[in-house]
């Protein structure tokens, strides 16, 4: 069975070249690895773009349904082609940089934000085999690179030389920084139960008895609470309602991206959806059993029926599970937006410092005891 995504891509290239009559084994190894890496990277970039565009459409549809209206439904079936129309429109939009802005930092900010949103995709597993790079420091890497986004947003707020942008950037800095603590503590809860930071090993540990071997139930009260702390912190980190103070339109216009328009604005928009996906996928991987299906692998009707899938089928099933769980959690984020009003700045600090941080510390201590006793 192929070990990693690189092996699978190499296998596909080898088969394709063999059909044309070329021997792939004669290509130098460095080139083969490089080609596989490039293809994997391009695939993930495409995936991010598709997810972001799809949720750009889904958000408007869901919003429409929840407010008893239609949402985009004219262009294409269910309005699905709306996102292509939007992409074309954005491409031809004017690129405006205010005269008083700091031009270099203004241009650099969207790049940093997108880097922070895209980097965690290196370690997100889709199934046992479908992962770009199986780093042993998986979660740690994902968390630390997600923090790059804060730098980009502060930069955007400051470089715009606009008061709204400055307020938005500073609010986001305060919010994202403080919510990294409960997020880290929730990840520690899982790490102590599993003893690994590698995302693949964490998911493999959750295999077994239906949903009861998933981390939320395995380390019952602690990881269960930890999941809510992680998801809430992630929600705040990806600037979603009810934590969308950095872009509160009723107070500070559009927050840190007030001055951004056209393609540069879309990069921020894309990064927001990418971050939402990363948070959802990490929640699924850490707490909700990753690519394991919520139905038992061993079905007992009269006699015991063992059900085992081949490598290709199990990769596909794993991918379906993983994407299904992530998309459901993203849908919950959209749902939140039309359910809860925005909270105040002091409430955000209260929730983080006085609720989630003590909760995270208690969860961590409890899970440590669990890990040593069980």
């Amino acid at each position, binding site marked *: 069975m192929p*070990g990693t995504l690189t092996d699978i891509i190499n296998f596909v290239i080898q088969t394709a070249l063999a059909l044309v009559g070329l021997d792939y084994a004669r290509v130098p190894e460095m080139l083969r690895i490089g080609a596989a*890496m490039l293809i*994997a*990277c391009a695939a993930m*970039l495409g995936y991010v773009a598709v997810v972001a565009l799809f949720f750009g459409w889904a958000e408007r549809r869901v919003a429409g349904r929840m407010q008893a209206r239609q949402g985009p439904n004219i262009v294409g079936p269910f309005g699905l082609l709306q996102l292509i129309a939007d992409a074309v429109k*954005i*491409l031809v*939009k004017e*690129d*405006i940089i*205010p*005269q*008083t*802005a700091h031009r270099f930092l203004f241009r650099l900010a969207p790049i940093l934000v*997108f*880097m922070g949103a895209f980097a965690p*995709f*290196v370690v997100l597993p889709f199934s046992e085999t479908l992962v770009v*790079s*199986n*780093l*042993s420091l998986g979660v*740690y*890497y994902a968390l630390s690179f997600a923090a790059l986004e804060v730098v980009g947003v502060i930069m955007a707020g400051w470089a*715009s*030389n606009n*008061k*709204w942008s*400055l*307020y938005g950037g500073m609010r986001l*800095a*305060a919010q994202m*920084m403080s919510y990294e*603590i409960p997020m*880290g503590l929730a990840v*520690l809860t899982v*790490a*102590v139960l599993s*003893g*690994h930071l*590698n995302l*693949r*090993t964490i998911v*493999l540990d959750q295999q077994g008895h239906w949903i009861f071997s998933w981390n939320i139930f395995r380390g019952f009260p602690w990881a269960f609470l930890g999941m809510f702390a992680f998801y809430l912190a992630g929600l705040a980190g990806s600037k979603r309602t009810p934590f969308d103070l950095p872009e509160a339109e009723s107070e500070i*216009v559009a927050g840190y991206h007030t*001055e951004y328009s056209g*393609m*540069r604005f*879309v990069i921020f928009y894309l990064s927001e959806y990418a971050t939402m996906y990363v948070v959802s996928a990490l929640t699924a991987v850490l707490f909700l059993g990753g690519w394991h299906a919520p139905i038992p692998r061993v079905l007992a009707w009269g006699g015991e029926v063992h059900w085992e899938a081949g490598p290709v089928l199990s990769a596909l099933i794993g991918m379906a599970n993983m994407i299904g769980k992530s998309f459901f959690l993203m849908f919950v984020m959209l749902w939140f937006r039309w359910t809860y009003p925005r909270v105040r700045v*002091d409430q955000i*600090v*209260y929730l983080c*410092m*006085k609720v989630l941080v003590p909760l995270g*510390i208690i969860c961590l*201590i409890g899970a*440590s*005891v669990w*890990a*040593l006793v069980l």
Partner: protein
Amino acid sequence: MGSSEPLQYGFANILLFLAAAVGFVVFNLTLGSFFRRDRFDPEKMKVYECGEPAIGSSWIRYSIAFYRLALVFLVFDVEVVFLFPVVVVLKRLGWLAFGEIMVFVVVLVVALIYAWRFGCLEWITAGMEKDSGRSEPGGTVADRARPC
């Protein structure tokens, strides 16, 4: 661990992803520049502050509350970073390591209680400090915030 690829390829992947992120942004902006038409207009190049002419620069001093929160964040984030290597090997090290790391955690919990008690976790801005209308047991919020 089940990792079949050497470590350096993993980090090469990270480098490639970061480069791809930069490339993606630059590519899209460049692609757009072939289609879009930029019309210069002095009004358009001004910053948008609800249509009013902007008064002064925005590179000003802002609320100290953000700075205080950043300091609290720094303490606890460093705590989390130090805890990462310990929790991974906790099962192998056993109760002694648990006791030792608890000492570390308890010291920080005491710090959290201290910060809480003295109002460092309250969100106080300059405007709120002036009006002492919010009275609570132990003085106003602003009073309690003074020691830090």
